[in-house]
């Protein structure tokens, strides 16, 4: 089992959008390594011909009719917004793709 490095923790933190402090990187690297080491036992069954269960219930086809239901008012929708402008959620500059 490969140990979890500080760099890997940093990569995970980026994926998970966590601005971890340097000391947290070290701390979590050790702990994640311990936990992964302990739970990696599940791979004992990796080769077994067992179907995966993603859900405890055998339900299928739960759907609703295409009927409009009342929305929130815009005041309710925006009631928790840290910032708003022109009835929209105001967020800092987005660095993504155009």
């Amino acid at each position, binding site marked *: 089992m490969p140990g*979890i490095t500080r760099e*890997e*923790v940093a990569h*995970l*933190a980026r*994926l*998970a*959008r*966590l*601005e*971890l*402090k340097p000391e*947290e990187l070290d701390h*979590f690297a050790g*702990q*994640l390594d*311990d*936990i*992964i080491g*302990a*739970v*990696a*036992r*599940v*791979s*004992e*069954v*990796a080769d*077994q011909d*067992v*179907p*995966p*269960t*993603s*859900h*405890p*219930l055998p*339900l299928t086809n*739960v759907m*609703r009719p295409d009927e409009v239901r009342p929305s*929130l008012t815009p005041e*309710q*929708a925006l*009631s*928790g*917004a*840290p*910032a708003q402008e022109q009835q929209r*959620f105001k*967020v*800092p*500059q*987005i*660095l*993504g793709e155009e």
Partner: protein
Amino acid sequence: MSDIIKLTAAEIAEKIASGELTAVEVTEAHLARIEAVDEKVHAFLHVDREGALAQARAVDAKRERGEKLGPLAGVPLALKDIFTTEGVPTTVGSKILEGWIPPYDATVTKRLKDADVVILGKTNMDEFAMGSSTENSAYGPTGNPWDLTKIPGGSGGGSSAALAAFQAPLAIGTDTGGSIRQPAAVTGTVGVKPTYGGVSRYGMVAFSSSLDQGGPCARTVLDAALLHEVIAGHDPMDSTSIDAPVPAVVDAARNGSVQGMRVGVVKQFRGEGYQAGVVQRFDESVELLKELGAEIVELDCPSFDLALSAYYLIAPSECSSNLARFDGLRYGLRTGDDGTHSAEEVTSLTREAGFGPEVKRRVMLGTYALSSGYYDAYYGSAQKVRTLIKQEFERAFEQVDVIVSPTTPTTAFPIGERADDPMAMYLADLCTIPTNLAGNAAMSLPCGLAPEDDLPVGLQIIAPAMKDDRLYKVGAAVEAAFVEKWGHPLIEEAPSL
């Protein structure tokens, strides 16, 4: 201590219906109790004094008009702060939602209101329900009323402590890996994790969607059943909700019996890590079941040994995705919006500041388990383990009607003892997790005090999916036999605070 707060929910409802007590009197008595002891216990994150009294007054008005009252009308309840409540703060024990006032009610909240249950306030919990001690709350720990230096269990420690401290006769919890049952066990109260899909998850802030299940908490089996009936049942807002009648739990609780039942004892639920006093009380419980007419069957479920590992891959994986929405843009905390940071940076700064260490640990663990190259070994394998556990339960229930085990391997441990030792903390859920993975129903009820520390021990009863009524039938029989043996309910031995 006022006598009102010692009453059971069933007794309170009866006295309000008969006019012996008013809902306002009952509510005020409990609010006074909260005022008197919650500084020490810290079961509540938010007490909704005005809302509770308004609800109580509405119940009294209904009675005065001669309207028929529901079976729990006017009974106070402590609601875990994981359910959204319109107009009342909902934090999930996290800084990231500090001050958030939801614009909508969870289905459970709505059903409680519709049943005229008086919601006293919101109870403390491990942040996002991740934990077994309530120490992970961003708002400080809750004390166990039996010994305030000990944990009240988790994640629903606020709800269990509120019951044990007589701050409320009813409470709601949620159980992802044992968060209703383990707190019930360590506080000498009753807690039920219904069959997955039995209680709507709509408005219940998600930790691990395929495992989470809301359920009733109380001081007696009958009270739990009455509450179960109010909150359970199909909800079209939750695609995973079961569209079938609710099992007749109240009826079962009123007719407790184990006569002629086959009760399974799983070999994997004992051994290393189990406290001697816990094992002793459990063995006595099995003897009691025999005396009451049950047949005991030994069971072997080898995959249960992998349950904890599977759980600590599945739950973090789902949570890493469920918690992505807390990004500081639409609601809740926002950190670093000073004009120099982009939206992406503000999201990372907000999540860093808003999540506690256990949440970050699990989010990263889940991110790891789902990432390309690791998915099959971790998440994929964990789901195979889940299948095996489900199959072993199915085979077991061909031989037995219910399974019993200790609820948790130890009694309440000291606050701080396992705080930065995740692996030790995770062991608290050893006996409860297989049920969450398989989706079936389980209950914890008190079976005595451990001789070595005089702290409550929980007996877990596990039933097949949609056979929740069996929990109450067996639980009520066991409860009655213990009360007769002890001469009083166990909770009366709790210190008076």
